[in-house]
């Protein structure tokens, strides 16, 4: 039996509600009571939050881990450490490992080994949508869904063939499986390393036009409509894509979208000076794009905020900008990054947490992500205002490629509970 814990004198961020409420929460393995808790059972640990915030643990729907196959980048253990410190209690692991997660036995491996090594952080596998991620033939979606894959994706490699994506979307409907697809026209994006615009021209870097995203998103949404499949547009970057998504949702297409937290906080100017840590895929775009994405999160048009955690060792980033790898770590900066929008007054706190807790839980059909009786006690205690300057060398991840390096952020996780057990105590 997990020892019960009572957190009192807290501000509760319940994503199901529209405002923060004062109250307490009592939990063991599951949440026993929330709101006006009458008392704690004998032997319970009692924490006086002293006005700090309590929220459901974050669910990060897009995390790259190097295990198996690239353990020098990240392991279940290091990812678990970083996640717990960042308030991420459940993470969805991308299938671009070696070997690729395209077989039920590998799904089983991740489910067993992940939580065993991660220090309790729940690691859920996203399965490859096509065999070897080569975009040609769909994988055993049914068998892997039964084995526990929570979504199906081709990762960073968009599927060129509309026919392949059509069939995969259609086939996945049998299992009500969610397909995440990166909308990026591979031909328009080929060779590009940053947002196409004046800055890219001045820096002499090949650009990726926003049109690459809009074109592919239009195609993907049209196919989702044709097949009645469930589609998550993975990590939108451009304002131009948003009206397209809005129209599709209004038509009743089962379409959802995520955004990488970096794209809500940073823009193309962060690339200036050839900063390879800000080299992301999709690229950081203009300030207008960033503002539109923030608005879309606030409106609920964008469903989910992800860290896009993509660990890259120094040797992949200490290169001329064009040659450097794409990607940034994000497990420990998802929360403070997202809280930037709260501190600026751009997005209401409950809305912000919805995109990192209850909405991902709904899409993944998880019982987590709620401050409700009987939900699993995956809970974080946060000091929302705590200021700090990010020192990427101190990140717990095995890689430290964060574009937030040396930036001033606010918001620190004081304690992380998973199924009622403390997995981080800061």
């Amino acid at each position: 039996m997990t020892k019960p814990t009572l957190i009192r004198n807290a501000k509760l961020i319940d994503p199901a509600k529209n405002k923060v409420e004062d109250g307490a929460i009592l939990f063991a393995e599951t949440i026993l009571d929330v709101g006006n808790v009458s008392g704690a059972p004998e032997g319970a640990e009692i924490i006086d939050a002293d006005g700090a915030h309590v929220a459901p643990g974050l669910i990060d729907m897009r995390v790259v881990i190097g295990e198996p196959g690239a353990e020098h980048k990240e392991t279940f253990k290091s990812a678990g450490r970083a996640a717990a410190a960042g308030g991420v209690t459940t993470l969805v692991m991308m299938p671009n490992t070696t070997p690729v997660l395209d077989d039920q036995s590998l799904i089983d491996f991740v489910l067993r080994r992940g939580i065993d090594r991660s220090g309790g952080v729940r690691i859920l596998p996203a399965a490859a949508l096509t065999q070897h991620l080569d975009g040609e033939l769909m994988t055993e979606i049914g068998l892997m869904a039964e084995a526990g894959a929570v979504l199906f994706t081709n990762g960073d490699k968009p599927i060129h063939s509309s026919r392949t994506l059509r069939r995969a979307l259609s086939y996945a409907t049998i299992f009500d499986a969610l397909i995440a697809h990166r909308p990026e026209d591979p031909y328009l994006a080929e060779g590009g390393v940053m947002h196409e615009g004046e800055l890219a021209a001045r820096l002499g870097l090949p650009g990726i036009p926003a049109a690459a995203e809009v074109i592919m998103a239009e195609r993907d949404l049209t196919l989702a409509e044709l097949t009645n499949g469930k589609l998550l547009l993975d990590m939108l970057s451009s304002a131009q894509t948003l009206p397209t998504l809005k129209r599709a949702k209004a038509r009743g297409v089962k379409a959802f979208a995520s955004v990488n937290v970096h794209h809500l906080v940073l823009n193309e100017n962060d690339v200036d000076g050839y900063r390879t840590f800000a080299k992301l895929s999709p690229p950081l775009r203009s300030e207008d794009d960033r503002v539109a994405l923030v608005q879309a999160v606030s409106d609920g048009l964008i469903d989910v905020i992800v860290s896009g955690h993509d660990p890259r060792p120094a040797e992949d980033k200490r290169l001329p900008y064009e040659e450097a790898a794409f990607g940034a770590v994000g497990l420990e900066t998802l929360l403070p990054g997202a809280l930037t929008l709260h501190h600026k007054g751009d997005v209401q706190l409950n809305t912000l947490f919805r995109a990192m807790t209850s909405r991902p839980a709904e899409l993944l059909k998880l019982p987590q992500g709620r401050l409700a009786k009987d939900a699993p006690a995956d809970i974080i205690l946060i000091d929302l205002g705590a200021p700090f300057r990010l020192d990427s060398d101190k990140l717990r991840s095995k890689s430290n490629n964060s574009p937030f390096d040396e930036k001033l952020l606010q918001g620190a996780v004081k304690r992380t509970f998973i199924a009622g057990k403390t997995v981080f105590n800061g």
Partner: protein
Amino acid sequence: MAQRPTGGKKSDQSARAIRFRQKHLLAIADLDRFEAENLLDRAEKFAPMLDEKIKKLDTLRGRTLINLFFENSTRTQSSFELAGKRMGADVVNMSVKSSSVAKGETLIDTAATLNAMRPDLLVVRHGSSGAAELLSRKVDCAVINAGDGKHEHPTQALLDAFTIRSRLGDIEGLTVAICGDVLHSRVARSNVALLTLLGAQVRLIGPPTLMPAGAEKWGAKVFHDMRAGLKDADVVMMLRLQRERMDGGFFPSAREYFWFYGLDEDKLRIAKPGALVMHPGPMNRGVEIDSSVADNPNVSLIETQVRMGVAVRMAVLEALAESGANQEPA
């Protein structure tokens, strides 16, 4: 419809006496219920003959039947050959290798050549939908479609219906689940048309990638969950996975297909107790059907289907020969 023979097992001389009104047998979709039952009733009298020592009639003596097969076939071609021979016809088998050049033109040229030989019955199988109909417009004799592309295979549906009728009596009111690769199946199209015509409740079961767009408008109910579709079915008709007709991945793998859509004893238990199993052959064992089901004589009608095929084809030949004899010469 007052005059239609009531279904069930009976050798009805009055039904047989009624002339079959179609010149060709190209598609079940061309038949009304009366015509379909006319053919099934005719087959009733040929079925017992198959077990007799001397299996030959002289109904078609002096007539010529040409088997024109552009696609390889074992059972359908030999079934038509036997049917023709038992009816006393002269049977010529022409196996035409499909050439890659201008198939349409080749088909019409072949038709002209054959027509000059003055056959009475032409049985044709072709890989292109609509080929039998095209041929029927170019020749003077009766044309029987033995399978055209992904369109129809009317004699297969007739023999399936005949097999069900001979085992369960009336087809009216039965629930028949047709499972598997509906998209590429001419057998499924003919069977949906015939079984619904005869009053059965037809269900189509398969992954959405193997279900043609609009199938729900055929008068059958579409299921993607096999277990839901099998519930209370009287007959389970498995379709052959037409891998030779597939371009790219319609489903991930044979093992996944078998897991979700292969008929094994476990899934069959969901159907009505005593439900019968059919398959048009040739079977992909361990892909769409488990051997424990296919080889179980208590549930499997698969061999009966083959046997009944000859009787049904004899009936079709007889009906069309009569029909042709009464028509104006071309």
